[in-house]
């Protein structure tokens, strides 16, 4: 890992100005994605700007129609939060199955969405639940936020400050894990409310995607049987030593079924 300058300002403005003052500055949250990338020399930022001293980024607020989760909330915090467990149990359960205890106690929701790893769980949770990403300057709907792998509309000096999750009638997340890393090989978030049904898939493709055919079928008949016969095409799905594209496509259907069943 190459040398870098470390900053730990105590305000959002301080973070932004530190980023602007750097050649190639990066925000550091839990470091669970950024540090491995730096260790492999796939990134060599000149400056790391830590969020650890910025107050107010780790709050979880119940706004009635939605939960606002601060960008620096760790996965462990979300998993254990009584508000999240009561209001969106699928989200708490999802966070509780990210990686391992060390990862869950360091990694943050802000870091996860900003990184947009194609095998991460939060992208499916955000898109599936119809969340809004809040930054220091704007609000972006999940459908617009998550591009192909590692791509987001965030500017270089833009900070995610929170994610707002609408309260839905029912939701569940089913995940097939990579046995080594515990990342998603296929993770499906199914959410249902008055607007209809959303089905978001992570791990299988080059980025999170929705399955319109499943959403339509579930809107008609919210049952596992309704999606059992619907398969996504394996074209363009990821393939690695754990799962080829065909197997991933199969798992998407199985996980979708299980998520629907778990929705009750």
């Amino acid at each position, binding site marked *: 890992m190459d040398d870098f300058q470390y900053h730990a300002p105590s305000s959002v403005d301080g973070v932004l100005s530190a980023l602007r003052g750097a050649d190639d500055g990066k925000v550091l949250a839990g470091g669970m994605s950024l540090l491995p990338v730096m260790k492999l020399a796939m990134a060599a930022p000149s400056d790391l700007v830590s969020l650890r001293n910025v107050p107010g980024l780790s709050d979880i607020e119940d706004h009635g129609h939605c939960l606002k989760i601060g960008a620096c909330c760790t996965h462990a915090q979300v998993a254990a939060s009584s508000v999240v467990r009561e209001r969106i149990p699928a989200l708490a359960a999802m966070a509780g199955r990210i990686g391992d205890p060390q990862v869950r106690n360091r990694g943050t929701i802000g870091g996860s969405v900003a990184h947009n790893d194609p095998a991460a769980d939060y992208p499916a949770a955000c898109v599936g639940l119809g969340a809004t990403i809040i930054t220091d300057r704007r609000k972006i709907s999940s459908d617009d936020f998550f591009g192909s792998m590692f791509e987001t509309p965030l500017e270089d000096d833009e900070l995610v400050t929170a994610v707002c999750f609408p309260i839905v009638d029912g939701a569940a997340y089913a995940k097939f894990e990579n046995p*080594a890393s515990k990342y998603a090989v296929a993770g499906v978030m199914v959410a249902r409310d008055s607007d209809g049904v959303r089905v978001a898939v992570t791990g299988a493709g080059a980025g999170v995607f929705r399955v319109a055919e499943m959403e339509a079928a579930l809107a008609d008949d919210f049952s596992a049987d309704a999606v059992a016969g619907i398969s996504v095409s394996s074209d363009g799905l990821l393939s690695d030593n754990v799962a080829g594209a065909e197997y991933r496509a199969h798992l998407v259907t199985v996980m979708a079924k299980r998520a629907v069943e778990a929705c009750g």
Partner: protein
Amino acid sequence: MSGNGSNGTGFIGASLKRKEDARFLTGRGRYTDDINLPGQLYAHLLRSTVAHANLGSVDTSAAEAAPGVQAVFTGPDMEDVGGIPTGWLIHSKDGSPMVEPKHPAMAIGKVRHVGEIVAIVVAETRDQAREAAALIDIDYQELPAAASLEAARADGAPLVWDEAAGNLCYDWEVGDRAAAEAAIDGAAHTVSIDVVNQRLVPNAIEPRAAIGNFDPTTGEYTLYTTSQNPHLIRLLLGAFVLGLPEHKLRIVAPDVGGGFGSKIPHYAEEAILTWTAGRLARPVKWTSDRSEAFVSDTQGRDHISTATLGFDEDGRFVGLKVSTQANLGAYLSTFATCVPTYLYGILFAGPYTTPAIYCEVEGVFTNTVPVDALRGAGRPEATYLLERLVDKAAAATGIDRVDIRRRNFIREFPYQTPVALQYDQGDYDATLDLALEASDWDGFEARRNEAASRGKLRGIGISTFIEACGIAPSAVVGSLGARAGLYEVGSVRVHPTGSVSVFTGTHSHGQGHETTFAQIVAETLGVDFEAVDVVHGDTNAIPFGMGTYGSRSLAVGGTAIYNAVQKVIAKGRKIAAHLLEASEEDIEFADGNFTVAGTDRSKSIGEVALTAYVPHNYPEGLEPGLEETAFYDPLNFTFPAGTHVAEVEVDPETGEVELVAVTGADDVGRIINPMIVNGQLHGGLAHGIGQALLEHCEYDDEGQLVTGSYMNYTMPRAGDLPNFNINHNTTHCTHNPLGVKGVGEVGSIGVPPAVINAVVDALSPLGVTHMEMPATSERVWQAIQAAQAQD
């Protein structure tokens, strides 16, 4: 329980807490990387990023000029030192010796695997060395790679070594080919199998490290290294590589965090660090990180085999023929050549009376990391093949899986197998019965039905196996090509006030020798457990030794210590006789006291020791002091055996395999410390389960390691394992005085076929008959798909 034995039953057989754990559990272990010498420099080893290339120019000038850099050396700088040697010479069928290319410490002219060392950069700090190494400009002129057994043996394959046509190192055989083929031809039934025993990464928790040091005033070199066998390293490094006499080369293997075989070999790093320290006359330290370990620690297994078993109408095995290709990697590591031959082919009798057996093995060079011993080393590969084949035989004949094993068990001992080994003792029925009982084998159908009601396919699998530990005797292994003896050394020093230091040539890197060996000495010498300390790991402290591998430490090293104790007692008897004014023959020794037979007149071992060191009233002509050394060369291997039973549940939708139960019934010989024995079994079982279900070291066609980190190489974790149901039935080894066998490798040998047999059993209702390791979800799903497509 520490301190006072086991409620009067003696120290042997007591689950005493491990002496070494106080320092390990409080972070006070002293590992190689914990050692820092005054004036120490740091090395970074620059490793090849390609699997096969001619080395064009290697420009080190920018690195040499970088901040803090003291030296940069490449292969040609070390050209004059000897190659890294191989410990075992194998002969091919036609009597010709194996192809044994020179293994330079650093690449000269060519690189042959990703991870091969191209240069060493030495600097004041570790970061400076690493940053400078990035400035070295290497012109790799890439060549096509032979990255797998199939690729290396294909027509027109790229050659790893010009002198090894077809990439063949040797073409070895054991057993009587004609007899085995005739038996199979004449058999009522035959079954055949093709199996892959996949490559594994050993993954000891402590990555390797080394510190070279040189004292110009004495000319003495010291190497601190993460080794399982410091004297062996001294022998190979001193005599073969650097040409240093023993008294000028000290090897220290301090606390070592696991080895599993990957810390047996003499590595190029050890030679490079020692040599560099000499050149610079300053200590130089190198510590591997995990990524580096993945491409530089020796790896294990990697066989492709085809085999046929012939049997009669009653399911009695009449002949077995096995043909194996074994991947040796790009260079011959220390025991690379013997693992797939003398530790593999000779295991094919298993616990069965098969009268005609033949095994042939091609040792093959590939552009991959060298392969060497890994927990079990050859024996897991043989056991897996045999136990899969036996299950196939049962399926083919309709004979029950347990019954066909029982029909073929060896029951008369000693038993001479057709593949060289002679088993001294065993009771295979007893461990089988115990395992069936403990696993509730007969109640399985109910469990299968209950699982089916939950949509799961449940299966049960069994393996009955033997292993061979404590490879010996030296004269025999020497005649088979071993370039070292396989005895062990123990010294027992009774101090003047009766406390005891024990010096062993074995090395403990997790096995608990400091406890087990102290128990043996405390019991046999009649002193307190706390009064005994065990010293290992330093060639300047210990007379000699061969180290720890192949489950040999207790059977060979423990016996050497036991024999040294007997010599101490013999001398003590003379001293006691003198003090008690009795004749030596009338002195009896028990519980630490020398007693005149039939009287209550006695002297304790403490009094005798004090007399030996303050010999005022002392037998004439007897040397003072109370310290004895024994070299012990066993007459034979020891033969642990047992039965393992595994139960799995398969999710037919995803192919996921959940291991729900593992039962072991093992005969590991006399048990000194049951807690340590069970711990070794647990670790071995976890290792074997890792192979059966999770671990797979994969290279791509270019020879790049695909699974080079824990993000994609799956190690078994606690959550992957059920509670182990461990049971013991013990028979004693007949040719060592302690009656001990060995336990460190049992789990990784016995359990993989039990797990795979269980997976196949679970899937058999769907028509699946075969499953490769690891039985990953995708593989299982594909097998189910294929079976359904056939319907």
